[in-house]
């Protein structure tokens, strides 16, 4: 949660203007005319049903589109002043990191520390600097004592943290996570979320998270952006977006508390504030 500057004052880190992208073997664009600005230090939650274009949008921001996935690309995406379509992945990967859903398939090396070093090796970082950056990243993610472990000796949560350490070693300003908790159990998911919150708070890293389990992320998200059919359809403060009845129609898994708030509003029962947690709602209901 960014606390010091108001949205208007923030530096714009990500600027997406009129972005449309169609995969070569597809008739319809996966992303249609999307415009979005993300300020430095923000935590943005991206939601929408399967096929709405969120995964495509993420890949347009980190550069996989168009560098790895060429196609019909219109509009522009800039991160930290760099135009994504015109900047090579070697530079982009030092500004934007991408963490994937399956912890298993993003760890390549046979030990944690060598995997964390992977990106740095590709950037020809000299050994001494590499060592200190790897140690730093492992410390931040709490995997230092797992440094020599092999991936198959790690739990899912540990794998996810290792992958995140590998991304952090590149010192990005923006980290994108594509459904990072969907294969984790709820407690481990909560740990990953608190990790995100800490990195955001302590290091000012900007986050974009695609997630179905909204209730996990809402407490730390500054913004909720909803996509449907490739377009951006809702964008605002999570409380407000969830209070808007349209959100359920877009196939977003609205948490029960938010659904209850909407249902009560329909009945004419207005709560003073849109609650983000059951405890908040209970407080308000008790006060009525």
């Amino acid at each position: 949660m960014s606390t010091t500057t108001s949205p208007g004052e923030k530096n714009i880190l990500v600027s997406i203007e009129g972005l449309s992208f169609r995969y070569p073997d597809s008739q319809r664009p996966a992303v249609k005319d999307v415009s979005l600005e993300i300020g430095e230090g923000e935590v943005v939650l991206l939601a929408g049903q399967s096929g709405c274009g969120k995964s495509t949008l993420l890949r347009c921001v980190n550069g996989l589109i168009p560098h790895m996935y060429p196609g019909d690309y219109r509009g522009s995406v800039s991160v930290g002043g760099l135009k994504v379509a015109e900047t090579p992945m070697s530079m982009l990967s030092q500004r934007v990191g991408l963490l994937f859903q399956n912890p298993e398939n993003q760890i390549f090396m046979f030990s944690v520390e060598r995997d964390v070093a992977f990106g740095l090796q590709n950037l020809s970082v000299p050994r001494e600097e590499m060592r200190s950056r790897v140690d730093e990243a492992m410390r931040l993610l709490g995997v230092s004592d797992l440094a020599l472990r092999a991936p198959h000796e790690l739990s899912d949560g540990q794998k996810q943290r290792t992958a995140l350490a590998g991304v952090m070693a590149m010192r990005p300003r923006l980290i994108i996570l594509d459904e990072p908790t969907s294969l984790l159990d709820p407690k481990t998911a909560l740990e990953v979320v608190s990790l995100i919150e800490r990195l955001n708070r302590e290091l000012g890293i900007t986050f974009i998270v695609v997630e179905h389990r909204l209730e996990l992320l809402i407490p730390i998200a500054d913004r909720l952006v909803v996509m449907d059919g490739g377009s951006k359809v809702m964008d605002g403060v999570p409380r407000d977006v969830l209070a808007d009845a349209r959100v359920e129609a877009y196939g977003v898994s609205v948490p029960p508390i938010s659904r209850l708030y909407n249902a009560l509003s329909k009945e004419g029962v207005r709560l003073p504030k849109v609650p983000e947690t059951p405890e908040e709602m209970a407080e308000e209901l008790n006060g009525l």
Partner: protein
Amino acid sequence: MFWLTGGFVFKRVVSPFNKLDPRVRLLVALEFFVLSLLASTISAVALVLLAILLVAAVAKSLRRIGRTVAFSGLFAVFIFAVNLLFGLGLLVAILYSFRFLAIVSSTSVFFVTTSPDELEQIMKWMRVPRDVVFAFVTAVRFIPVVMLDAFQIMDAQKSRGLEFEKGSIVRRVRNLIPILIPLVVNSVIRSGELAEAMESRAYGSTPKPTSLYGMRLMWYDVAVVVGSLLLSSAATLYIYHLVSFQV
């Protein structure tokens, strides 16, 4: 299965042998390998085998390697029988089976003590192309994962009434299709995800990536290289009766 493969899977152990530079370990294993082939008498091969097992003990991996040797003993017996059948004589048959055991154990000593990361370093040092090295390391890294996949696929198909044990050879081979196709499909999907993750971490930006660890020969490495080469040369000369020792 475990007994056979156990001797070729790396196990993290602290031992004098493991401390050596991986290239030196490779050299020692190669020396044993070559000596096993050159040794022309049963006693010579037996000595080589003994030497290998001694090194295995120093590497604190005697049990693992011993198990694999014992298991390969079955193949050795097979070789023995085949040789006898072809009328090559009892002594030759014994020689060949022992030689087989020595070859297996010399390779085993190398692989048990060398991690895939060190294998990667050796390959880089040998100037193997970056992509080949990466493909190799990734393949090894995913062996346990693919095996797990295979078991889960078998479970899913067994739960749909598929029976592996029954039927003719033809039927049993056909029954592998519901296992192989998902396995292949999963591997393809996995490769796609890996490719995305690799790209996202700048893979391919340079033909010469740096690395976290380097290899540096220490005094003990040099000592072992020199010592082992001397011993191997002496052994070779002895084998070919170019020099005789009062033994």
